[in-house]
């Protein structure tokens, strides 16, 4: 029953952390000099408009009351309304979150698919030219600034080679003539669900540059980690024993599987 106590303790801690984070962010947002009422109205508000907005947004109430309103709304799942777009925050989240998730998943997939095999092979072939090149690539992947790499890749693949699109999640032509019906907001998934194969290909093509750019760092990391654990395992005595018994190959395969699992956990 020790685990139950642990879970309860962690949950209580989580609540405490959430409450204090909400207080701190709320106070910071209200203490820095700014006028949300004026921002709500627009770029050139009049004093009457500001006064009206202040009242409507309850900004004239004492701070603790404002905080309570904020928290109770939050508990009801109401994140409030953006002062700039006058739209519910939850809608903004719903609009942008799936796109972010899709990109992150794509980048992670790229990182695992490229990083782990390269790391394994580089470990297995320690000291070879391939190993040196892979290690160089991994150092480059970890140290290259992504915003710079993104620019270079755009110049190369869009401006010069005309192979890949620039920006956006789908092309104008698709948006006009063959739009993807939104279900989850992740275009690749939605186009599979609706059988829109043109949409699938178009959204995948648009994912290539950002996914590879974002994946450079984790690829480099995955290569290094896989390689070092690979080497560690290959130096184990049982490998030596297996080698002696000419079972080396099959053991190497199993160590690969093990590495894949170990690598996957820090990435998650």
């Amino acid at each position: 029953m020790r685990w139950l106590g642990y879970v309860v303790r962690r949950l209580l801690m989580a609540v405490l952390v959430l409450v204090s984070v909400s207080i701190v962010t709320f106070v910071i947002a209200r203490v820095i000099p700014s006028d949300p009422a004026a921002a709500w109205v627009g770029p050139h508000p009049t004093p009457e408009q500001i006064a009206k907005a202040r009242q409507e947004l309850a900004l004239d109430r004492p701070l603790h009351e404002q905080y309570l309103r904020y928290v109770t709304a939050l508990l009801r799942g109401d994140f409030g309304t953006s002062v700039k777009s006058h739209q519910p925050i939850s809608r903004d989240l719903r609009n942008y979150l799936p796109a972010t998730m899709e990109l992150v998943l794509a980048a992670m997939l790229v990182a695992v698919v490229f990083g782990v095999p390269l790391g394994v092979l580089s470990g297995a072939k320690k000291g070879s030219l391939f190993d040196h090149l892979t290690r160089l690539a991994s150092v480059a992947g970890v140290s290259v600034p992504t915003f710079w790499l993104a620019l270079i890749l755009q110049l190369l693949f869009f401006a010069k080679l005309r192979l890949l699109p620039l920006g956006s999640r789908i092309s104008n032509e698709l948006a006009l003539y063959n739009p993807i019906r939104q279900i989850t907001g992740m275009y690749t998934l939605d186009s599979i669900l609706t059988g829109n194969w043109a949409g699938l290909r178009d959204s995948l093509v648009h994912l290539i540059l950002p996914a590879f750019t974002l994946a450079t760092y984790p690829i480099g990391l995955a290569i290094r980690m896989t390689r070092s654990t690979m080497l560690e395992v290959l130096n184990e005595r049982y490998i030596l024993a297996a080698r002696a018994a000419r079972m080396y190959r099959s053991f190497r395969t199993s160590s690969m599987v093990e590495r894949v699992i170990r690598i996957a956990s820090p990435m998650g």
Partner: protein
Amino acid sequence: MKRANRTVYLAVALSLVALLAVQCTSKPQSVAPTATSQPAATTAPQAEPTVTEQPKAGESGRAGIFVYAHGTQFPDLDPAKSYSNDSVVMSNCYETLTFYNPPGSKEILTPKLATSWEANEDATEWVFHLRQGVKFHDGEPFNAEAVKFSISNTKALGIGAAYIWDPVQEMEVIDDYTIKFKLSYPAPLDLIASSGYAAWIYSPKSYQEKGSDWFQQGHCAGTGPYIIESYEPGSRLVMTRNESYWGGWKPGQFEKVVFEISQDPVVLQQKIEAGTADFTYGIPPDNEEVIRNTRKDIVVYTNPSFQNLVGLLNTKKPPLDNVKVRQALCYSFPYEQFISAVMGERATQARGVVPAGMWGHGDDLFQYTYDLEKAKQLLTEAGYPNGGFKLTMTYSSGDMDEQQLGEVWKAELAKLGIELEVQGMNWDAQWQLGKSDPLKAQDIFVMYWWPDYISPYSFLYSMFHSEDEILFNLCYYSNPTYDELIDKANEITGTDREKATQMFIEAQKILLDDAVSLFFYDVSNTHLARADVKGYVDNPAYPHVVFVYDLTREP
């Protein structure tokens, strides 16, 4: 070990093949409907797109689509509330009663949804005669009731530029196509009705039944030539023709309008250079010049805007409470040198408060020039022969032009023995400091001003009229003679624009004599368009707006 080697090569080769495969299959897709302006389209190896992505019959493909690569999002598409860059969208689906003509036109205003209008002698009663046979996108008829609803609804919500309708006390529907406005004080309602913000006329039925939220999610119910078809916030907005537009359609006009949003200026530039976009603005200024000089397929339009950069001086706090010191500051800035070295085509030195090209601008007004001798003399007269004081200038951090201006000015003021602290703040913080106690606030407040509806009063009132509670009069200036002059001028703007112009120019003389602010420069806007797009005219009254209805594509 040999076999292991082979595995490596196989793995690398396979991944390369996979990568190439995806790229190749992508090709016909990204260029599907062939366009005349896309040289790359002809080089695609596979001519036949394998999917049903070609335009449907009757649509002219890429040639009939106008693509505007836009650098900012469209925060609020509700015609009653919108007060920002979303005017580039709104102006294509909504219309106003009157229209402000581009500079150089014979008349200031042209009829739009109103065909004619007249005011009584003291401009407190206005009658607008409305265009007949116009329909909203939802099929409802456009009439006096719709005008009454739109304006009173916008006014009641009170968001954004709704204050432009403040003078309107009562609206009376005389008949279907005549509406009478009764004002609580004299005001130029014809100009107000041409505003690029808060003056849109929209369908009462749609607004009442569907509400603000429906509009904000990317729908429209106006009278304009295009209708919003789809909207993905933050990435793309598509508009299609309003087939029953009252102006009618001619061959060659665009079928569709696409706004592509990318917040990276370099992406905007690459899109216009590659021809995947037809129009953009806001690319890095140096690159604008390169394109202007090297590209024949892109036209770079640079036009004066109605926006200017001012440096409001704190007239309440010593030593700037002394007019001689303020005048000395006005002589200490190297206007011409700064503009030619830093701004290039993007600015012209301001003359007076009202930007050139706008009515109320005075061509003969006094203009301060760079003259350190004169500044030194004025400082001596004021009792500071060797300077010896410190000033703080605040500006919006992130604005490179303002920042460079501060650094240049700092060096000049150092020659006069004045230390200038150049402080970048975010706009909110800068403004809050400005609105606090003048004696503790900044000495110089650098900001841009632009008008809502096109009147000198916007500049002269907002920044320089006495205020009980400080809002934008951040020089804390208070001069009853000046206040009376501009208030009177505004009252007669609707009836005697000639006289009003004279009075507004007179008022600017007072401000220049009192040296309440530096007027650094009028901003010029640069827009880039593909050369095959014809008919574009910049209209500073509607900044960055492209009236796509006026355009055609000609090879």
